[in-house]
């Protein structure tokens, strides 16, 4: 067997393709890459997939794989070839994507990508050339260098300080993602036949959509092993093979799983996902709230995580925007997923919120004592403070121009049988205390927010009304 149709007739990309370079590979005499390339090309030919193949070449001697393969070619960064391959595969599931990598690339710098991609199991094929040394950079120690083997960075032989050689085929076969893992060699005719078959099988499994396949090829690097090609073949057989036993490490028969529909570009579906509506919401405001700031109302909601400050803040923003105003909500909380502090800055503006932060709010909704103590003094003169009198027993002294509304958010919510609605009680109190929007604006926003949990609407409406009643009771 010789050149296949997958190998270019002239290597035009090879240093301008002139002279010998137009027809000879750049690999050293005796290098295993040439054979691995031939087997790969023959497999692509035999499977009839030349027009579907994307070959991903790594950093290393075989970075120039694209000189030789008349298929779609991509060159990846060092170690990143398997994830580049995934990017191609997901872009076009019909394509056959082959990541061709050396040992420094695959087993060292790209180990995370290698293992994660194998475990993902998507049908790509990885051809792993293991020659026990770094080739392109000039013969340094690879993760696969044998114990005792000398290299330019293990001059007196690899020892315990460098760790043991990486057995990639076994490692990959130990994962659940791959369907087929085999280690092959090139050192004699028998092994070459096996190698050729293994590569073809691995790609065939991908063509059938069955899953991730991995072929480790024990290859010769006469230049950096500092041996003749013949000696290198012998060395691979006698020294490498005992450490890296040949053969099938994993071969699962699985049903093809990788089927993807073409991506959807239906406008209605996208709008439904985003929740965008073509219907105008009902409006209840006659104009921008008077009695508050002229064109921009600044609020702060503060409490502990779980108090519902962020949800309440969002409802205020939604209510404002449904009325045709502009609004913003900035959440702020500690690194804790739950508990900790939780603040929200909210602005409602007639046309455009300029500065969305609320360092000196006009309205403060405080859900606990520390929040009231922290933000109470920042409230502007003439502003409003509404706080949970169920948990705040002693309110700080605030500027006398500030209107203060102690409302038992938690007490009311608990009496209603659901402590989590205390933020809705707070919104009711906000409505009654400030008249920022009509009651129906809030109720509308609550109904929209609970449209998928309709059963909760009556409870929330009741909580909201209790908030209003509590403030009205304070006035009397």
């Amino acid at each position, binding site marked *: *067997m010789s050149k296949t149709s997958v190998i270019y007739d002239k290597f035009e990309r090879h240093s301008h393709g002139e002279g010998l370079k137009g027809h000879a590979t750049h690999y*050293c*005499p*005796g290098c295993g890459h040439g054979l691995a390339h031939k087997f790969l090309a023959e497999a692509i030919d035999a499977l009839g997939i030349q027009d579907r193949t994307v070959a991903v070449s790594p950093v290393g001697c075989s970075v120039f794989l694209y000189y030789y393969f008349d298929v779609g070619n991509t060159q990846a960064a060092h170690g990143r070839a398997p*994830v580049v391959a995934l990017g191609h*595969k997901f872009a076009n599931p019909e394509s056959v994507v082959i990541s061709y990598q050396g040992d420094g690339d695959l087993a060292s710098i790209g180990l995370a990508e290698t293992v994660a991609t194998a475990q993902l199991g998507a049908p790509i094929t990885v051809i792993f050339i293991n020659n026990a040394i770094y080739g392109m950079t000039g013969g340094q120690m690879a993760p696969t260098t044998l114990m005792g083997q000398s290299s330019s960075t293990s001059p007196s032989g690899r020892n315990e300080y460098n760790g043991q050689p990486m057995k990639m085929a076994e490692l990959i076969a130990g994962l659940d993602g791959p369907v087929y893992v085999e280690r092959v060699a090139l050192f004699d005719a028998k092994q070459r036949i096996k190698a050729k078959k293994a590569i073809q099988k691995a790609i065939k499994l991908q063509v059938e959509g069955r899953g991730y396949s991995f072929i480790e090829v024990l290859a010769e690097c006469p230049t950096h092993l500092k041996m003749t090609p013949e000696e290198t073949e012998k060395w691979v057989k006698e020294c490498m093979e005992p450490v890296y036993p040949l053969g099938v490490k994993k071969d699962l028969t699985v049903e093809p799983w990788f089927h993807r529909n073409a991506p959807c*570009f239906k406008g209605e579906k996208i709008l439904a996902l985003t929740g965008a509506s073509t219907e*105008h919401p009902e409006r209840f405001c006659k104009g921008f709230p008077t009695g508050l700031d002229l064109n921009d109302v600044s609020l702060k909601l503060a409490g502990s995580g779980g108090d519902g400050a962020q949800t309440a803040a969002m409802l205020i923003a939604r209510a404002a*925007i449904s009325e045709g105003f502009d609004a*913003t909500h900035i959440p702020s909380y500690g690194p804790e997923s739950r508990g900790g502090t939780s603040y929200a800055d909210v602005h409602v503006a007639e046309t455009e919120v300029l500065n969305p932060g609320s360092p000196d709010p006009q309205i403060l909704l405080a859900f606990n004592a520390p929040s009231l103590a922290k933000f109470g003094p920042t409230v502007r003169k003439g502003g409003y403070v509404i706080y949970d009198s169920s948990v705040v027993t002693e309110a700080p002294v605030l500027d006398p121009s500030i209107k203060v509304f102690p409302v038992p958010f938690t007490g009311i919510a608990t009496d209603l049988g659901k402590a989590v609605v205390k933020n809705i009680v707070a919104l009711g109190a906000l409505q009654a205390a400030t008249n920022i929007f009509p009651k129906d604006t809030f109720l509308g926003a609550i109904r929209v927010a609970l449209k998928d949990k309709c059963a909760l609407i009556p409870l929330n409406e009741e909580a909201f009304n209790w908030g209003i009643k509590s403030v009205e009771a304070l006035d009397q």
Partner: protein
Amino acid sequence: MALKERPKPFLLPDYCKGCGRCLDACAKDCITLSDQINPMTGLVPVELDLTDCNACGMCMDACPEPYGLRPAHEGVIEDFELEDPAKLFGVKPSEAPEPTDIPNETLPLPRTEPLVIKGTYASAVGAILAGCRHVYGYPITPSTEGAELMAKFLPKLDGTFIQAVSEVAAVNMMYGTAGAGLPTMTFTSSPGFSLMLEGVSYMIGAELPGVFVDVMRGGPGLGNIAPEQSDIKLACHGLGHGNTQAITLAPSTSQEMLDLTILAFELSFKYRNPVILLGDGYLGQMTGKVQLPETMIKPGIPKWAVYGDAMHRKNLISSIFLTESDLEAHNHHLNAKYEAMKVEARAESFLCDDAEVVLIACNTPARTAKGAVQDLRNQGIKAGLFRPITLWPFPVEELKAAIHGAERIVVVEASAGQLEDEVRLALSKAGVRQFPELENVRRMGGVLPQQSEIMTRVLGRKEVLA
């Protein structure tokens, strides 16, 4: 198959590197190493004596060279001409067709009511409307919700969201999908963006489009998750190694998180270059009013893509140019492209026409500054705001117009002067020597400049206190 049908091997000594792999393979000892160095290659090729050859083909199977030992019918040894291999083989044109563009389609969307969503969501929705169905990411606050929304939406649109093993993997998945010619993006935040820079450099080198939404947070190192404008320098001057530039957009509202994401995809494909959307921690998490556009894009496949089909078989995606002159030519080409990108400079000038004090700010600090401008105007101070929307290329012509007649310039930013450096560099490159001394309001560590601080800076402390 009868053995006699098999061809015997032939060899052009020039294409033999003399590795000798065929020697072992031949059971009839037909092949020996020559003792003559080939003058063309400096190597010692093998010699064939085919007297005993039974055409078993094992030697050809052992030969690592595609043009090494071949069946005799592939060449006629007498025709061998030492100097010019092309004369021997002729130049056979590739059978692959010339790649062509499959253009994008613009599809109509009905007019909808504004959404009330946070900045990262707005950006994610923008990406979907720009035709992006392939998103790769790694969770990092405060950008995470963008990725989470993609994880929720994309499977329903038969798209792909993959949570990568790391940012490094994420950007390289983008490299693959972008190489296939499709729109792709990621959501990240400062420490994650740092990790992606290797891939960004490769994408720029290989001329691949892609959108990076970097929701900036406090640095250096792990810093914190609060907003800072810590990556302006990185985006404008430090995109990995080499000669790299990318259009960098700086939104300041939720609406712009959507609009500029859509623009980012458009520019990214127009120039075959990554585009960066630099938000900040507040913009990522801030909820606001977002109006959707009335069209969306269904992407085609550009002619340069390696899609994995017959049409695009000829193509190569690569950033390697080993010959110095080739790389220099490539870098000249990239530089010409960067120069062409300068027409994309964009800015907003707010009340700058008669402004005596011009504030310069971008992202969330620009909104704080806008609030301050309004306050100052209410107090009778002629203040204005210049807001660069592209940080690279810097909108220097717009800046010149905005500061024309200004007596004072105050740069407001959440960093130690990264934006101010951009302003100085832009003015310097534009040959502007005469401008008021730059004053500044700077906060860091997740603390944003406050409106009161800007007022203090402009009015002087005494007046503010009074």
